[in-house]
């Protein structure tokens, strides 16, 4: 059952240079026990969407609902009690933890009413930290352990959904593997829904049940993880997968996507991806493709695909001068 639902969310930032539309109509849903990955390059709006999901930034239009109630943007008033069950974990465990308070007291912050230390110890054990961590300070822990402390603090509120903004970035491979396994376990064993924001499709593949790919403020593809990885339906998803370097010793250079993410205040005409797309044809700069619903629980915003049909494989361009 869907617990967190974002529909047609638009988020604008207002600055000196005028309005910037960071999220231009994006939808995503998370059910209990489900891990949903949200991937895309920096500047695609994924972190803004995460913030809109928990009410840290207001949506200009569209709806965000959590457990059937609207998520109201954070204001001066106290956050409604129901929304405590919707938690956010930030990217940097160096800046999101208070260096001067013990781990135990920070994890206890997430609990309402009395804060029995037995419960704190239990939660620390769930995330794989020793029970003596309670009386210690954040600086005594490594980056990976700090990220677990941040997750423990979110778990203390007994959440039904946790939104995680790049929790695996800046960790060494082994710490990343430990944390990725922990996230999977939380979803399965505690029945928590996770919205996992990441720029690393390879690690998302190991953790997420479903993936949404975002480009310049819009969703370009949504699919069950394995299918997306094996048969991407949108050229941008295909480019993200081809750019992942493989540690197989073969000495193959990853495929690079030419160009840059365009300025979101002046998005390209038609399909926003067309200036970088190796498959673009005359329709693409003219008309923006909607997110077409395809067979097999998939959707893609690309004129190469047809609504209701199975996703067509992308033509192979290796060796062609349209990719580098």
């Amino acid at each position, binding site marked *: 059952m869907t617990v967190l639902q974002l529909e047609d969310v638009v988020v604008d930032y207002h600055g000196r240079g005028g309005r910037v539309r960071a999220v231009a109509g994006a939808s995503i849903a998370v059910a209990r026990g489900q891990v949903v990955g949200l991937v895309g390059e920096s500047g695609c709006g994924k972190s803004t969407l995460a913030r809109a999901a928990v009410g840290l930034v207001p949506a200009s239009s569209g709806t965000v609902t959590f457990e059937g109630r609207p998520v109201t943007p954070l204001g001066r008033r106290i956050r409604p009690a129901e929304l405590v069950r919707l938690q956010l974990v930030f990217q940097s465990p160096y800046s999101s933890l208070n260096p001067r308070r013990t781990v135990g007291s920070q994890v206890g912050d997430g609990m309402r009413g009395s804060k029995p230390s037995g419960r704190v110890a239990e939660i620390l054990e769930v995330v794989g930290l020793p029970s003596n961590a309670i009386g210690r300070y954040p600086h005594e822990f490594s980056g990976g352990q700090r990220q677990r402390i941040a997750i423990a603090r979110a778990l203390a509120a007994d959440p039904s959904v946790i939104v995680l903004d790049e929790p695996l970035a800046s960790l060494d491979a082994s710490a990343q593997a430990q944390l990725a396994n922990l996230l999977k376990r939380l979803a399965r064993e505690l029945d928590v829904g996770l919205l996992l924001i990441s720029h690393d499709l390879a690690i998302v593949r190991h953790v997420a049940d479903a993936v949404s790919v975002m480009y310049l403020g819009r969703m370009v593809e949504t699919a069950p993880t394995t299918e997306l*990885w094996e048969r991407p339906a949108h050229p941008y998803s295909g480019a993200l997968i081809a750019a992942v370097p*493989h540690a197989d010793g073969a000495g193959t*250079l990853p495929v690079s996507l030419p160009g840059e993410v365009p300025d979101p205040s002046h998005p390209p005409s038609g399909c926003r991806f067309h200036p970088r797309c190796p498959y673009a044809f005359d329709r693409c700069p003219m008309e923006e493709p909607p997110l077409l619903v395809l067979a097999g629980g998939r959707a893609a915003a690309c004129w190469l695909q047809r609504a209701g049909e199975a996703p067509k494989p992308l033509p192979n361009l290796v060796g062609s001068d349209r990719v580098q």
Partner: protein
Amino acid sequence: MSTLAVEGLRVRLPTPAGDVTVVDGVDYEVQPAEVFGIAGESGSGKTVSMLALLGLLPDGSSVEGSARFGEDDLISMPRRRLRTISGRDIAMVFQDPYTSLHPMLSVGKQLTEHVRLHLGLDRGRAEERAVELLTDVRIPDPHAALRRFPHQFSGGMRQRIAIAIALACRPRLLIADEPTTALDVTVQAGILRLLDRLRTEHELAVVLITHDLGVLSSIADRVSIFYAGRVVESGEREEVLRTPRHPYTRALLDALPHPEAPQEQDLVAIKGAPPTPGRIPAGCAFHPRCAYLLAECRTKVPPLVPAGDRLLACPPDPFSHL
């Protein structure tokens, strides 16, 4: 002849708790047009071993060993001479293109100042050289780019500019410390392709430091795996990454999400955490985390010795049959 030959490099850094050994006997060579890759987790001494060569360590550090660069030894040469060489014959590119460029100076200024200082060109010639460099690293519209400031470029473009500055004086050696870590994968792929082209075109010897074995695998010719300040395995990229023989190299590779592995399979993390300098375990530094240890591993520091097609610091050598 190799561009750089490092032998017996040992670095001790001062800390409040006394001096600690951070790099403990490291040897390697880099040839022209070759990418030599150094990989390991944070704190394994990869970066410090490079900073030591360039005299960039804090006061009170001690460096032993030799680093032959052409006719010179970087470690014993006077600081003044080292300063002339580094920046001209040896260039560095760092992880963070946001902090390695000066935010208040135009790209043109940062590029021309550099070539005027080191090569003694006049303003007109320096500007020509700057445009040439920006074209070489594929910055669109290089003439306009000269008048812009770093914040007007994306992370990937900034890293290209940092590489252009590094190449300005036609160095023979480029040290790239995590050059793609802060970038998106699509942008990373572009930078790796750029480095790969430049090393061939400019006969550039490259030392690439990375924690990402995927990056290492795409571009390095030979690799060394660092653990706790020592090299545990070293050899041709293909041999080391395809058939790793040190339990640590193998564990690092197993921790990565493998593109062909079934999705349900858990990733295999290495138990425990890497040791902090100053608290390196006795014997083989990896032994508390190793699944293949023998009694001798707890007491004897394993030497890095030839083992068939590579160098290996693991006497039990549990994967020799593979």
